[in-house]
């Protein structure tokens, strides 16, 4: 019933909204909001050490044993998200996620949630561009009950027009709460739309208001039939459970669901990006300006994928804490910004993004902050990162992986997002090793690949009274000719 703007977007969104409010605290957290960041336990080789099964109907089952408490987290992930929608039906993936609680051939509307609650379970669901997932968190002896009803709604959803009509009002209210009532969300939505020239990642997960209003029972059922099937699903069970028994239970309930023939995921790809874009949103509800710069970037699965790990290290060095470069330069040294940071997620089926954000100090023009950001990027491209910075960032990321084992959710989320975006369990387990292998040269090459202004959107949020900002002046960027493999940034201004 929620939508998760994962893949870096959620972080961007939150930071844009609350970068000031949470700055001091958030900057203390290593790898904030990064479930995909797993790590190396001292004893065993992997991170979460899952057991993986594939049922005859194609359903993949992953079991993560964690005996901290006598509980189990049960999740079903479908390899479908808002980026798999057809043009004109934006929001249908998320709307269907809501409608999945409206009953099946054997359960009435709302009955699913009543059963979960009566069994002391917490539940919810979330939708992103690449996946839709449902979960129940229960005492371990309730696992068979929730597996049974989850398997039921994988194939037997029943919707009435009246239920659909009512729930449509709910998603419209959800969009008002998340987007229409928040200027920073509106800017964020416009920036993404401008960044992706052809990829469906430019569409908001929740949908455009005018299209959401037209979504029908037929649209929902058609989407459901095309995408919800055991051979398009991953079941993840984490907790105090026995893998063999979970497998037996899964065979009983999920094994009975028939596979369907699936069309390959249709994802229009980005053309070369040739022109820097600017987006400005002016609104009376904005007290002070803020700035975001978003660049197209490779993910684990698309583009120059070999840089996906180096970009995570770069993100740490640039802007995830109070000691990172951007904060030290813009907030501490130059005192032009009250907050600044960066964000990147490699977990996406298609091209991801790397973003920077900043909030100017009182009285400082937004153009001046943009120039300062540009200067830091120029310095990065000119001088590169240091061996010490890389070593430190890698250590923090690898340590974050140890912390990731402390709760059930992190492992399940890491594996769920990986398996729905073209990666494998082995990739997740090898994450600390891959991070450990990142070199200074790779980080510098990744920076030169990504920080090209013609592949970016610069968004500004302005108070109503303020004038339009002047485009920032900054030093031109030069690719370092001394470094082999440098990606030329042409005449890009950074």
């Amino acid at each position: 019933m929620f939508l998760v703007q994962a893949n870096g977007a959620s972080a961007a969104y939150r930071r844009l909204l609350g970068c000031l409010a949470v700055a001091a605290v958030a900057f203390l957290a290593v790898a904030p909001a990064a479930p995909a960041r797993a790590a190396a336990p001292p004893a065993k080789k992997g991170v979460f050490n899952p057991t993986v099964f594939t049922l005859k109907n194609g359903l993949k089952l992953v079991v993560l044993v964690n005996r901290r408490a006598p509980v189990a987290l049960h999740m079903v992930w479908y390899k479908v998200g808002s980026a798999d929608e057809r043009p004109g039906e934006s929001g249908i993936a998320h709307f269907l996620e809501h409608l999945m609680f409206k009953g099946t051939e054997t359960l009435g509307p709302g009955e699913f949630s009543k059963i979960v609650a009566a069994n002391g379970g917490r539940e919810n669901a979330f939708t992103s561009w690449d996946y839709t997932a449902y979960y129940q968190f229960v005492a371990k002896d309730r696992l068979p009950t929730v597996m049974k009803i989850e398997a039921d709604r994988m194939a037997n959803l029943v919707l009435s027009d009246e239920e659909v009509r009512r729930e449509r009002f709910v998603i419209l209210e959800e969009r008002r709460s998340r987007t229409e009532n928040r200027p920073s969300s509106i800017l964020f939505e416009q920036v993404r739309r401008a960044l992706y020239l052809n990829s469906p990642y430019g569409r908001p997960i929740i949908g455009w208001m005018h299209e959401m209003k037209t979504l029908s029972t037929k649209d929902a059922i058609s989407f459901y039939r095309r995408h919800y099937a055991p051979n398009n699903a991953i079941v993840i069970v984490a907790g105090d459970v026995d893998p063999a028994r979970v497998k037996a239970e899964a065979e009983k309930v999920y094994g009975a669901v028939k596979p369907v023939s699936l069309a390959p995921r249709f994802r229009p790809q980005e053309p070369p990006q040739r022109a820097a874009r600017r987006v400005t949103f002016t609104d009376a509800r904005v007290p002070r300006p803020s700035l975001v710069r978003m660049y197209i970037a490779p993910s684990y699965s698309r583009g120059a994928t070999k840089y996906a790990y180096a970009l995570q290290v770069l993100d740490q060095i640039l802007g995830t804490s109070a000691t990172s470069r951007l904060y030290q330069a813009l907030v501490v040294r130059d005192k032009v910004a009250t907050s600044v940071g960066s964000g990147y997620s490699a977990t996406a089926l298609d091209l991801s993004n790397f973003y920077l954000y900043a909030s100017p100090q009182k009285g400082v023009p937004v153009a001046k902050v943009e120039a300062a950001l540009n200067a830091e990027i120029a310095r990065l491209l000119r001088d590169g990162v240091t061996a010490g910075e890389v070593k430190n960032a890698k250590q923090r990321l690898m340590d974050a992986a140890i912390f990731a084992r402390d709760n059930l959710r992190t492992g399940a989320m890491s594996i769920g997002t990986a398996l729905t975006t073209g990666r494998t369990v082995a990739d997740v387990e090898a994450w600390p090793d891959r991070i450990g292998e990142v070199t200074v040269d790779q980080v510098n090459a990744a920076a030169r690949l990504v920080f090209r202004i013609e592949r970016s959107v610069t968004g500004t949020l302005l108070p109503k009274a303020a004038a339009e900002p002047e485009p920032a002046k900054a030093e031109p960027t030069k690719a370092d000719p001394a470094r082999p493999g440098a990606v030329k940034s042409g005449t890009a201004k950074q």
Partner: protein
Amino acid sequence: MNAFLNKAAAGFLAVLVAAPLAAAATAAVKVQEVVGASGVKAWLVEDHTNPIISLTVTFRAGASRDMPGKAGTARLLSTLLDEGAGDMKALAFQRRLESLSISLGFEVGRDTFRGTLRTLTRNRDEAFRLLGLALDKPRLDADAIERMRAQLISSALRAARNPGSIAQNAWWKAAYPNHPYGRPTGGDEKSLTAITRADLLDYVRRNFARDTIAIGVVGDITAAELKGLLDKTFGPLPAKATGRPVPDVKPRLSGKVVVRKLDVPQSVVVFGHAGIQRKDKDFYAAYVLNHILGGGSFSSRLHNEVREKRGLAYSVHSYLWPLDHSALVMGAVATRNAKVAESVKLIRGEWARMAKEGVSDAELKSAKRYITGSYALRFSSSKNISEMLAALQAEGLSRDYFEKRNSYIAAVTPADIKRVAKRLLRANSLTFVVVGDPAGL
């Protein structure tokens, strides 16, 4: 659909008569009391599964101890404790934390000032040392104060334009016009500007004391190891707190719907009235009652009436908010301007209906099943458990609370619910603040 519904009901019953939930779900969590030579006490849950230690420390302090005209002092301080301590300036201190993967953070509520520490076992001693330094010897350097002040002012300015924050702040201000609870915990531009370094130091000296401390520790550490660290870390703090006393207070409630005009498409609504204190003998009955009214996310009456039946909101909920010196029942909803009057009417109506009729036996049974059955879910991370350990001590609850808590819920009878519904729910004093451009209000 009728056939489906009948079958559904049958299926539902079958689930209900299944075996009762394991009440001993938390029995595995053994809480030890560790007392240092200095008298500093902590509750500890040892867990050597992962090389991780989580610690939560709270002081009975919080934003209500801010001096008059200086609202936001505690909040500002909470952002400054990692900006240098002892002879380490901000960058050195933060680099030290970061290079050792130590997380240290502070949060402020109305009645508590809370610190959270998380470390790998290998950096345990240094992590405790840095926490001790942050509490006992924060530098509060001028440049750090200005940096954090600027961030909080920006944040306050944003809150002043955000419908949700406007509604919250207006509600609390109206309920507690002459009491610290009426001020925003993060202060406003004027009060934040007025805070001096002396104010911050004064807050530290008065409030970070051993007599109001509560410490919860979870993870890869033994009682013997913790004992010595407690003395080193918290021993240097003063024995007694001398914070500004906060008087007990009753919320002032008009029972009206107050509209604050703002040009947004969706009105944000905050509502509430007087509640029930944590130590009240009726607290557990009130907790169950509220779960049925608006606490249970997808099963509550408010959710059902406002969202499920009418699609008037994405989220509607209510909650008990016991404070140290007052108590509230509150809730929130957001509905498009054209329809928000209907949401307000429905909520007041549900309030009155429950006060008058109470709840059905089936609702009570179902709520108790959920509340007892879901309790074990709270024990799924070290941080959750360390926070609960600190909170139990701060509330004066017993060390065997984890084992006993479900029995307190199970003991709630229909008669208790009836009595508490009458006592607690007052539809006529339910006071609403609506921020937006609502029609018909």
